[in-house]
């Protein structure tokens, strides 16, 4: 039945594209179909599905996932408060007067707001509102405008403590735990903090590349920009936001507080400032919380559905099949990593980053980490691939969001042409990190780097350990 799981995976892709139904509904329906198929043919012990409620309670009981509604609320509050506007004006005022200033300001704003916004969707909404009208006024073409907004919106994916980073960290932690236990390696299992640190240098490199590209592209803008005046209150808001952001990032990076607490601090600060300045009243707050619960639900329904689906795949034995396939990739570890990243990249044509994190990563990453010991390196490569997936035409989430929110969206072909240099920079960085793993171990001691297994394990041995690790859950009481 191992290949049935692969067929179900394909069915999910077809179902999502063909029906237009929410991905969560398709995942649940296909999972039930797979379970029924296994039960009807008598080939799988369907009683294993009784483990599902326990897994779902783990989601409701997960400390790290508490960050999710907080980030969503933070993004929504940012959109209703003048923080983004103040930061943009401050950035424009600081930069030397040139045609490139608006595009560079847009990129910097994306990097600053990304970690606070948490999600790409919230960043797109915020940046579209603040940057797009100004770029229009400066004579920047819609294609370049949309490309810059899309790229800037994804910068937060790499800059900690973003939502994508947190969700990926949680999934990588589970995958690494599984791999370390199966191989018997003495590695410390990676945590959110490790992945935050590992992503910092690649994120900085990508930001520098994007700013350079924005400056080059911006020289073709139609006229030199006169910076908008920065009022005292806007300057204060920008300075406060910047200090808060540095404290937020620094505090998480230094381990003073957890990502959830950082998110709560950000949300609380925005909430308090909005109430004190009377920009938030009952009606606005009601709308913010209405949107917050709806967007949070979209992400959690996906997580719940993916948990159901991956359990069915495990019951069908697809995880062992994937393990064997990854183990069979010939050559150096780089080839195995490239093969798995290619699968994730291919999935990005039909699935968005959150779907990939919840559905694909738990299937393909544990076998990869069994083979490749450096979990930080793999995590950052997956992160870079996910960031690229947000911009991958035609279904990249950031692309679709930008085109959906723009009043006069550029034709896709022209937008892709404007996007091409940024995509090239993204893939260049991916290649650099792939062939230079030391970039993700910046400031890390030699002893902390993941070690290869003491001896190579056969696929049979790994599968035997996997079975030992996941014993059949007990059936519920009949009474």
């Amino acid at each position, binding site marked *: 039945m191992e290949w049935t799981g692969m067929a179900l995976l394909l069915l999910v892709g077809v179902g999502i*594209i063909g029906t237009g*139904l929410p991905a969560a509904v398709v995942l649940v329906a296909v999972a039930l179909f797979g379970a029924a198929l296994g039960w009807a043919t008598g080939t799988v012990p369907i009683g294993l599905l009784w483990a599902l409620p326990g897994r779902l309670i783990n989601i*409701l009981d997960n400390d790290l996932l508490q960050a999710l*509604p907080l980030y969503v609320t933070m993004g929504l509050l940012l959109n209703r408060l003048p923080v983004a506007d103040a930061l943009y004006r401050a950035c424009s005022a600081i930069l030397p007067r040139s045609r490139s200033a608006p595009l560079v300001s847009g990129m910097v704003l994306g990097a600053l707001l990304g970690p606070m916004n948490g999600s790409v969707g919230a960043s797109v909404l915020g940046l579209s509102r603040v940057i797009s009208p100004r770029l229009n006024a400066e004579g920047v073409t819609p294609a370049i405008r949309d490309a810059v907004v899309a790229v800037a919106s994804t910068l937060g994916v790499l800059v900690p403590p973003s939502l994508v980073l947190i969700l990926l960290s949680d999934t990588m932690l589970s995958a690494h735990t599984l791999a370390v236990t199966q191989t018997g390696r003495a590695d410390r299992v990676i945590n959110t903090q490790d992945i935050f640190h590992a992503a910092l240098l690649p994120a900085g490199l990508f930001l520098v590349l994007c700013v350079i590209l924005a400056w080059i592209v911006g020289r073709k803008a139609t006229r030199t920009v006169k910076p908008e005046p920065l009022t005292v209150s806007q300057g204060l808001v920008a300075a406060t936001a910047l200090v808060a952001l540095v404290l937020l990032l620094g505090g998480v990076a230094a381990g003073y507080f957890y990502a*959830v607490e950082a998110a709560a601090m950000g949300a609380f600060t925005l*909430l308090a400032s909005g109430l004190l300045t009377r920009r938030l009243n009952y009606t606005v707050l009601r709308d913010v919380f209405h949107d917050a619960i709806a967007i949070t639900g979209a992400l959690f*329904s*996906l997580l719940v559905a993916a948990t159901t689906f991956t359990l069915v795949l495990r019951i069908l034995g697809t995880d062992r099949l994937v393990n064997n396939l990854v183990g069979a990739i010939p050559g150096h570890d780089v080839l195995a990593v490239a093969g798995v990243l290619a699968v994730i990249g291919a999935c990005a044509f039909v699935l968005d980053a959150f779907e990939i994190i919840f559905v694909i990563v738990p299937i393909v990453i544990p076998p990869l980490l069994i083979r490749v010991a450096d979990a930080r390196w793999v995590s950052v490569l997956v992160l870079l691939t996910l960031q690229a997936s947000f911009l991958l035409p035609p279904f990249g989430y950031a692309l679709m969001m930008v085109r959906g929110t723009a009043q006069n969206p550029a034709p896709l072909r022209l937008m892709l042409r404007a996007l091409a240099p940024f995509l090239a920079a993204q893939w260049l960085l991916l290649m650099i990190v792939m062939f230079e793993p030391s970039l993700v171990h910046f400031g890390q001691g030699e002893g902390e780097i993941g070690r290869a297994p003491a001896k190579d394990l056969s696929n049979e041995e790994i599968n035997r350990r996997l079975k030992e690790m996941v014993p059949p859950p007990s059936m519920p009481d009949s009474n």
Partner: protein
Amino acid sequence: MSWLCRLDRVVGRIIAGAQWLALPLIILLFLQWPLRDIFRSYSREANDLGQIIFALFVAVSVTAATRAGTHLTADAIAQYYSRRVRVRIRKIGALIGLAPWALFILLASKSVVVSSLQVREAFPDTGNPGYFIIKLALWIMAITILAQSLLEIMRRAPRDSA
């Protein structure tokens, strides 16, 4: 008023109430750090209470997303379907996906949730009361999803104008 309208109204009210849980969630999780590192007391209580509120918020959020239409979807092909076809597809999705899933969760989690409720299970790490509410939240999630699925299935399909 038909029972469908009543059900619709009840689900709407549950969501309208649950959305405000975001406020205590933000405050409690914000307080964790000063309580732990400055006042050195009640940080675990704030964390546990935040966990309960988080579970209830998330439990209702799935249905809130369905009603607000915020679920992640790929519309590349489906945008060309008529409204009637899309509504029918949604009905089928609720009928073969969400409704049976919610029923299965209610059935499969019965012993876990009921036994937790009976002993008023406390948080295993801290001993603080209320952990059973987190398990109960799973039922709240399943029941609201089931109710919303029923609404989807029973709702009349629009006449095809396309």
